[in-house]
């Protein structure tokens, strides 16, 4: 049951301890419970505990709870400035000039969490061009950002 989650975490070089006793898969969605929830839950729940993400067409889609948990570990992260934060949550990709700090991998193809200057997780993206090289181009592709909550409402 852990494999999709472990695979996803490995993209960020991140490790999180998830107690399998409290990890639950309901159809294609993953939840993390605790002792108190486990004692009272019935089988036909719609949502329970901490939602971690879902599988769709063989791909794992993380929740923002999981991204926040990854953000607290030693994972690949990029801190962006205020203007880039706003553009990112509007669904835009990231230019090199908007990056204030990089932690972990800078290599093309790596996945990175995107944090604002208060270290709050805004989503994640994929590095398109090595971050060590000077570039005026888009360097990180937006994969998921918190603006998704607004897009879900309008669907």
């Amino acid at each position, binding site marked *: 049951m852990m494999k999709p989650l472990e695979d996803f975490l490995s993209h960020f070089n991140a490790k999180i301890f998830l107690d399998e006793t409290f990890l639950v898969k309901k159809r294609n969605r993953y939840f*993390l419970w*605790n002792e*108190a*929830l486990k004692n*009272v*839950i*019935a089988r*036909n*729940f*719609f*949502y*329970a*505990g*901490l*939602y971690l993400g879902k599988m769709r067409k063989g791909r794992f889609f993380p*929740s*923002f*709870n999981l991204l*926040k948990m990854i953000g607290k570990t030693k994972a690949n992260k990029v801190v962006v400035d205020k203007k880039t*934060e*706003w553009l990112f*949550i509007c669904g835009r990709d990231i230019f090199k000039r908007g990056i204030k700090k990089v932690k972990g991998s800078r290599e093309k193809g790596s996945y990175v969490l995107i944090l*604002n200057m208060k270290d*709050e997780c*805004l989503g994640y993206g994929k590095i398109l061009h090595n971050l060590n090289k000077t570039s005026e181009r888009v360097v990180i592709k937006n994969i998921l950002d*918190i*603006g998704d*909550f*607004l897009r*879900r*409402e309008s669907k």
Partner: protein
Amino acid sequence: MSNKKFFEERYAKLGWKFKYVKPKQAIRINTMNIAEEKVVNRLEALKIKLEKVPFLEHGYWVHHSEFSLGATSEYLLGLYSIQEAAAQIPATLFTELKNKVVLDACAAPGGKTVQLADLMQNTGVIIALDVKKERLTAMANHLERCHVKNTIIYNLDARHASKLKLKFDCILLDVPCSGNFSTDKQWFRKRTIKDIERNAKLQREIMTEAAKILKDDGEMIYSTCSLEPEENELNINWAIENLNLKVAKIDCYGENTSTKIFGKQLDNQIENCRRIWPGKTQGFFVCKLKKVA
């Protein structure tokens, strides 16, 4: 007689002179995710003008904002919720919530569920029910945005809550109601006394079920955003007579309710309920019920 006139006359009999009001937009800080003053400072830096709601611990009225309050990073990060001021009152009336088993019986879209989780600091368990399946996804999104982790959602009619085979320390009954004109411009056009009586019956059925699953020393908060006595004082009077419940005193914003409604003398405990006429907030009614030992 027009529908509007009919209801205006009823409100006059209850001691309130009708006037149109538009409730101010309000927010509530999710203190489980961040310290309150940090969010306030951040919002003020965005030129959002806030005023602390004097009768709420974490509530603010919004006087001015250059952009939608539902589109800031702070909102999307779950640091605050948009929640009308009167609607923030019911969850705050429980004596103790931390580590308790709590039922939010008519929970969607989840504003009060998130507030309960916040007051519980994500401890204990909240069971959140809603009968309409199509409303559950919005509620789940709300919980995810605010990083709530102590809640279980079921697609279940509150009238069948005993199917869960649980007893609850606290039950929030923010029951489906007829609403009021201050949040619905078309209210006088579409509401009739028959609707109100139908809703009042549904509310009594929900209360009956909730009374069965409330622990002996448990607390139940009943609230509506209706101004109609059938859904408020008269229903609570019925609960006192039929469900072995008593109305506990509460200390919150609003007026003590009258024990005489449309000529009918009600139980004296009814004066422990609170009625809020539209003005600074929307119209609202709230009370705390306990089981008689």
